């Protein structure tokens, strides 16, 4: 059984009484519910310490931590792998080998803590499907279990998919799928799934509220949104699919931390049994990083450490992090910007494939497959997706790899969009010319999105 860290910090609890509480300054981008819960649990056990929370979105936290103001900060605590890697590289973290020692190195092929212990995973979130079982049952739809299932045309009009250029948690999920399924295959699958979906972006109802309210039957989302809603009574289930994508939240102690001792006690708390248990609260519902917690009676139903994985597969966080904004731009070029043309493409491909199948015509089937492959070809290939020139060309967020900024139009992204529009138009023209499509194919089975 893995040793808990709780005992380790007991030795450094200082005396207190009439003294002013020492302050620990924490920069974070967690939601108020998460902050409130952790703060309450932490200060209950550490009455001589007070937390000063400074809230910054990940893209805004970097300039802050790198500036003069950053020197007043003790701890950075957030879900932004890129920021942690960058800060570690700049030497801004003080390594904590003893705190990191008790943690597993990877989960489902995803690196958790930094190998040099400059920052540690404090919680994990996984992607999957929030489903409304009653909605699906009423329509005779099975509950999807894999990403491939979501591409099934039966789900057309019943899905919500997070728009990566507008939804902070989505790019990592896209990147994980691309690494696991390959650049071309991954985009083909994403395109097909998106053809069934309405793209969701924040500002209105939460993605899980739409599913709970049965405006759609399935939403692709990150687990804690759904788990928290379910714990608070929403009529939903959450499905962890075949391919897991993991978004770890990290914590690190700044090298110049004015209150290094206090910082260590906060981090040790987060990684202790009490801190990890606090993650299970209905308003938080993040998964602990400690494998032991999954073995206990009140453990979360799903143990990601037990999930099967292709032997030797590893998510490349370094390469992934710099490509996130490129992924979002490709998604926009292939899907978002094409709007109805994207839907129409899939309608044509599906109709042609059915016709070819119905005729038992192998040549026709292979023609449809060829048309599909050329239509769905991403605007750049895998090698280009890693190239700094492409990131420069996209500008803004892409250069640095941030994820949440709204999409900016660049000459390059506009060029991609028109190239893809031509690809789709050509494909539809070829299918029309193939004789596989009925005269009125485009007016059939038009499911409103």
């Amino acid at each position, binding site marked *: 059984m893995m040793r808990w860290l709780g005992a380790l910090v007991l030795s450094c609890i200082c005396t207190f009484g009439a003294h002013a509480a020492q302050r620990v300054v924490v920069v974070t981008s967690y939601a108020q519910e998460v902050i409130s819960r952790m703060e309450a649990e932490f200060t209950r056990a550490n009455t001589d310490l007070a937390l000063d929370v400074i809230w910054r979105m990940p893209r805004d936290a970097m300039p802050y931590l790198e500036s003069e103001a950053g020197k007043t900060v003790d701890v950075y605590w957030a879900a932004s792998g890129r920021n942690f890697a960058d800060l570690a590289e700049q030497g801004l973290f003080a390594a904590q080998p003893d705190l990191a020692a008790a943690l597993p190195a990877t989960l489902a092929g995803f690196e958790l803590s930094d190998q040099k212990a400059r920052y540690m995973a404090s919680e994990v979130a996984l992607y999957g499907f929030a489903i409304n079982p009653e909605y699906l049952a009423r329509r005779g739809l099975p509950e999807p279990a894999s990403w491939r299932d979501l591409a099934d045309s039966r789900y057309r009009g019943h899905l919500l998919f997070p728009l990566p250029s507008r939804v902070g948690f989505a790019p990592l999920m896209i990147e994980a799928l691309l690494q696991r399924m390959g650049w071309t295959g991954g985009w083909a699958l994403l395109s097909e799934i998106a053809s069934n979906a309405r793209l969701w972006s924040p500002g209105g109802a939460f993605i899980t509220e739409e599913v709970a309210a049965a405006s759609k039957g399935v939403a692709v989302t990150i687990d804690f949104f759904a788990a928290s809603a379910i714990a608070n*009574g929403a009529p939903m289930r959450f499905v962890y699919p075949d391919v897991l994508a993991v978004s770890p939240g990290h914590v690190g102690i700044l090298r110049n931390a004015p209150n290094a001792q206090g910082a260590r006690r906060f981090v040790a708390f987060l990684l202790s049994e009490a801190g990890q248990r606090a993650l299970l609260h209905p308003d938080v519902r993040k998964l602990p990083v400690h494998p032991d917690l999954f073995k206990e009676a009140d453990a979360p139903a799903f143990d990601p450490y037990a999930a099967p994985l292709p032997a030797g597969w590893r998510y490349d966080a370094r390469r992934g992090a710099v490509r996130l904004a490129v992924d979002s731009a490709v998604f926009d070029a292939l899907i978002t910007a094409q709007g109805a043309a994207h839907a129409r493409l899939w309608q044509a491909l599906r109709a042609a494939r059915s016709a070819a199948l119905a005729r038992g015509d192998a040549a026709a089937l292979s023609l449809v497959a060829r048309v599909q492959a050329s239509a769905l070809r991403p605007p750049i290939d895998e090698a280009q997706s890693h190239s700094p020139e492409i990131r420069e060309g996209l500008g803004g967020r892409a250069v640095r790899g941030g994820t949440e900024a709204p999409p900016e139009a660049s000459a390059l992204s506009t060029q991609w969009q028109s190239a893809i529009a031509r690809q789709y138009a050509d494909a539809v023209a070829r299918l029309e010319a193939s004789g596989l499509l009925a005269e009125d194919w485009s007016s059939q089975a038009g499911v409103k999105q």
Partner: protein
Amino acid sequence: MNLVLRAVAAIALLLCGLAHGREPSVPAAGGSSTTTLESREAYSQPSQALPPALLAGFFAGRSLFRQVWIIAPALDGEVDGLGPTFNRASCLACHLKNGRGGAPESHEEPLRGMLVRLSVPGIGPHGGPVPHPVYGDQFNDAAIPGVQREGRVAIDWIRHDEVLADGTIVELRRPVVSLAEPGFGPPGDDILLSPRIGAPVFGLGLLEAVSEKTMRELAARAKPDGVRGRVNEVWDHSLGRTVIGRFGWKANAGTLRQQIASALLGDLGITSTVLERENCPPAQRACADAVNGGTPELSEAQLQAMVLYHQALSVPAARTHDDPAALRGEQVFHRAGCGSCHLPQLTTGTHEQHAWLSHQPIAPYSDLLLHDMGEGLADDRPDYLASGREWRTPPLWGIGLTALISERESYLHDGRARSLIEAILWHGGEAQAARERVRALPAAEREDLLRFLRSL
């Protein structure tokens, strides 16, 4: 369809979704703004009466209420400007799940869902309290880096036992507030302190729609047991005139716009189109010199969205009807005289902006009036017309879900009561007769009464 249109369509669909499957609520606590949800989200539901066109504004308001505000300057310019001094960085921090805050248990524990109002004796320009010359009108125990916080509030508890007629012992506690580590020197002996916990924020559009005429009639009406009740009259910055008070523990704000603008400035340090100047008393130089997040920091559109959010939060339906014990308890409630102040039925007047809030029969269990509650509850800090002994009758709707939603029970203005019976036993002054009747109740009837309160 373009994205914007799709979003609108989606929201319309959502509204249908939310409305779908709802049974007509039997006792409509909030008229057409009632939800039958009994989960931890029961304080967070948009009114079904909210016109679909306003749903987007409701969600925008929700996201501002949930926002953890950022120190300026920041890339997220729409939500920066926290402080320079403040209490908490989000509205949600003191109103988790739109419910109530609470008091710290120990001397060391910081205030999390609570604040302390300050003043010195006298009457201010618009009839309100006179701010303390150094610490202002609210003690801000947090500040952005580089700015001195005003200090720390420490709460200690004095405890005593109350014995009920049947021999049951109930421990009561009252807080002693001290300002520890004062950042700008000792505040002086004449400082007046009023500790207050965050109040629940649902159903407020309906309370805003209760007409002044109704409230004045309620005040004038003859009541048993020596119960009086009067309206507070408070200054409204937005309207530039004195209005009738409705919100806050002493009915010290008249409109939601004013209440929210004051919370933004006083609790978070966010300026708005209503209160445009940072909250920096003259002695606090670093505060006045700090970078701000725009003038004002909150735009008019953002403020309107926040107001709409509060106006549209539904009230949870009472669950009394299918519980015989609660139904018996309802009788006890009225026999004990609770209903003289906790008025079960009111009808809203005409809401100036929103017809859907107008003319609704509602069950707030409040008359929105000030009552002398005796020495035990007094804070000795006048607030407009409210004396140190007077408090506004708080609505009891939704109170039965407190333990579920807030995960702890904290009642009365300073969160001293940890259970409903403690809250009742603190009633004094005009409510003394009612309290004595509860004290004399046989155990079974007392349980029924509490069961009734928990069914609200």
